[in-house]
């Protein structure tokens, strides 16, 4: 395969981070591990990003709209044949470019943020492995390969959340994240196997879809498969009811939160649903369930973010909420044109990656300066101390809040339009979509409020610096502020560049073969992205109200006396709506009871076994006296035994 061919570029993009992971791991025992371990990751991500952008720029040379590379058979047993096959289509190419671009800047940021930490090389090795796994997840055409990469990103997430593994809370958070996502993955595995059966025993997604085009399965069966796949997506993308791991995952280093738990890994669920859009189109019930899960999560997480005092926790809940938005957009799959739903979700995914990575990195910059403290009650008024970080955080918060013309505004607006379109279609669920629209608007208001609450608490009012900063709190070095500025530019301009004027993203994504297939299978015929002035006006007003309220209440940078109406909801939010408590009573405690019962049974059983094992020992204790070391004694014993035997034989024969 010549190097200039697109597919070899894809293999190169995939292998660069893997090589970086190996290089960083090999560096770790040497004395360069503390100083040079970041080089492989930064170089690999930068090169991969360049290659991915090259691919996008050269896309017009690919006539078929999809490239599939069937490299080799991973394993085969009977009907099951699993190939290592990659597929590059507009959807995965977009994701690939986003992942490599964001991770390149985050890698650069981490070189400053992580300097001097213990396990410096370990951090960069796992980060490289994560980038490799994420690229593989996006590119995998085979469902089992996808599952492998899916678990690999989960593993990297586990390792990085537990990076400070000597801290008990970090270890517990890592375990929780691993177990909760695994709960969803059970559904994913079942769904994949069911899809394998439905899809004529194919394991490549493209082959399954081609088969399903010929052999349309029963509606109920495909709905079940969709819901099972959705379980995996919910776990990975931290949707209600499995979102609980993501806020705790903030125990990891901040670049990890930015890359894995905001920009890339948590969007894997959204990507999975978008990739399997044709399946979801075939089901009539699965999309509305996705929409309700997304809407519920968006509102719930926004409420939970209202009163948090940990800056990273606010951002984590905000991520959950924004992922809920994306799921809400995907929930309109069957009702509106699939291309519209996928474009809305992916557009929000891209802009969210920019501004949420920016927000997290800004929080990391603050945390770096504050000596590891991230509690908003401990510091404030950093506006003059950290001017660049302040401006970058402001850009991110404004984009998140949906300030007009910034990237978050456009993508959120597209999602709202999609939901409006779904409610206007007049299907059986149009009332539901209308309700979801209201929920999404309320969420927009709350989002503006909590993002600016965090901003004001951190950067306004009198300057307060915690004692942990040890008196030398300062603006971060260029290696950290540089990525912040780049991402801030993305958060400001990516939205307007990609969609509202040029429509380039929607036109590009609409050529994705799977999206076109979904369009063929769905009832919807035409689609267009049109700017809805009413919705834009309403959401802008809501954002303004939210920002205004936050400014009114928190502009002094310290918690104010809240109006009486807000107090109950804030206090509920502070206690996270008692959801952890409910989970504890409903799930953890019964399981602990079950574990105790199992322990009792196990002890009883193994006690019996031990008793049986003790009997020969006791007999041996009693018999060991005859082992006295005298050879003649043994010989006599043998002779007597022989004599008894002979007597017996002779008497038997004689009778």
């Amino acid at each position: 395969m010549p190097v200039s061919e697109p597919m070899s570029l894809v293999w190169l993009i995939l292998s660069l981070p893997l090589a970086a992971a190996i290089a960083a791991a090999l560096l770790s025992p040497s004395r360069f591990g503390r100083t040079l371990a970041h080089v492989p990751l930064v170089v690999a991500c930068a090169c991969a990003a360049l290659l991915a952008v090259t691919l996008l720029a050269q896309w017009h040379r690919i006539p078929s709209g999809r490239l599939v590379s069937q490299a080799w058979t991973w394993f085969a047993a009977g009907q099951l044949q699993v190939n290592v096959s990659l597929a590059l289509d507009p959807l995965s190419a977009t994701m690939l470019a986003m992942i490599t671009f964001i991770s390149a800047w985050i890698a650069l940021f981490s070189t400053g943020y992580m300097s001097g930490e213990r396990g410096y090389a370990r951090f960069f090795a796992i980060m490289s492995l994560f980038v490799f796994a994420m690229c593989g997840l996006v590119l995998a055409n085979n469902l089992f390969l996808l599952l492998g990469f899916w678990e690999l990103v989960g593993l990297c997430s586990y390792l990085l959340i537990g990076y400070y593994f000597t801290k008990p809370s970090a270890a517990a958070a890592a375990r929780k994240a691993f177990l909760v996502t695994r709960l969803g993955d059970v559904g994913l595995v079942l769904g994949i196997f069911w899809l394998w059966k439905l899809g004529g025993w194919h394991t490549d997604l493209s082959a399954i879809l081609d088969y399903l085009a010929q052999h349309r399965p029963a509606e109920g069966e495909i709905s079940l498969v969709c819901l099972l796949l959705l379980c995996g997506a919910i776990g990975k993308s931290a949707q209600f009811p499995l979102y609980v791991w993501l806020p705790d995952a903030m125990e990891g280093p901040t670049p990890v939160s930015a890359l894995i738990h905001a920009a890339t890994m948590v969007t894997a669920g959204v990507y999975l649903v978008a990739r399997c859009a044709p399946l979801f189109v075939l089901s009539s019930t699965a999309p509305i369930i996705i929409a309700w899960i997304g809407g519920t999560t968006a509102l719930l997480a926004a409420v939970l973010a209202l009163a948090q005092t940990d800056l990273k926790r606010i951002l984590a809940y905000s991520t959950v909420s924004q992922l809920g938005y994306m799921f809400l957009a995907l929930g309109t799959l069957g009702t509106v044109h699939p291309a519209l739903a996928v474009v809305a979700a992916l557009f929000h995914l891209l802009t969210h990656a920019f501004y949420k990575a920016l927000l997290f990195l800004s929080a990391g910059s603050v945390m770096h300066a504050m000596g590891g403290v991230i509690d908003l009650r401990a510091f404030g008024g950093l506006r003059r101390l950290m001017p660049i970080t302040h401006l970058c955080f402001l850009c991110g918060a404004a984009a998140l809040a949906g300030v007009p013309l910034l990237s978050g505004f456009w993508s959120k607006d597209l999602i709202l339009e999609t939901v409006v379109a779904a409610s206007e279609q007049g299907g059986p669920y149009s009332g539901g979509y209308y309700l979801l629209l209201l929920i999404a608007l309320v969420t927009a208001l709350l989002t503006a409020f909590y993002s600016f609450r965090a901003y004001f608490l951190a950067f306004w009012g009198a300057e307060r610096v915690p004692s942990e900063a040890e008196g030398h709190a300062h603006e971060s070095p260029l290696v950290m502020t540089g990525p912040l500025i780049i991402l801030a530019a993305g958060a400001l301009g990516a939205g307007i560049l990609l969609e509202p004027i040029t429509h380039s993203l929607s036109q590009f994504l609409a050529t994705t073969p799977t999206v076109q297939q979904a369009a063929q299978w769905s009832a919807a015929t035409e689609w267009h992205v049109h700017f809805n002035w009413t919705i834009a006006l309403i959401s802008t007003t809501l954002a303004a109200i939210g920002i205004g309220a936050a400014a009114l209440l928190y502009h002094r940078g310290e918690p104010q006396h809240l109006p009486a109406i807000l107090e109950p909801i804030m206090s509920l939010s502070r206690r996270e709506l008692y959801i952890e408590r409910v989970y504890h009573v409903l799930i953890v405690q019964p399981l602990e009871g079950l574990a105790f019962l199992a322990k009792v049974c196990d002890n009883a059983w193994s006690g019996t076994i031990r008793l049986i094992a003790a009997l020969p020992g006791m007999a041996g204790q009693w018999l060991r006296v005859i082992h006295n070391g005298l050879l003649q004694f043994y010989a006599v014993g043998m002779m007597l035994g022989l004599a008894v035997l002979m007597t017996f034989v002779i008497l038997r024969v004689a009778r």
Partner: protein
Amino acid sequence: MITLWHCLAVGAILFGLGLTGFLTRRNLITMFLCAELMLQGVALNFAAFARWHAQMYGQVFVIFAVAVAAAEAALALALFLTLYRQARSMDVSVWQSLREAGVPATVDPDPLPPPTAAEEEEIVHLPPAGLRPAISRKEEHAGV
């Protein structure tokens, strides 16, 4: 006429003698010889029955047993040599120290006399063919 019963009787006598010797003697080499005697008694039974049945199987087995016994003798004598080097005695009851831990030792009412200093000195050398075996180093020097 030598009948089967004659052969069996000789075999039984050999076996009985070997058994008695094995149970009563304490010298390792004597015990080993007695064990060989028992083995030969059994082998004689094989040969006798082979003849009585007019078959070769028994004889094949005897040859096999004799060959194995020869190999076993080589091994056993080598072991005895090392045992002697350890304990400076051929008495088998010396090795009752190998009994199970915690079992009281069997007191020997009639132990072998300890080796005399002269016996300690004696180192047996193979003499050149046709010469009287040298008994002690002094005599050996004197003799040569």
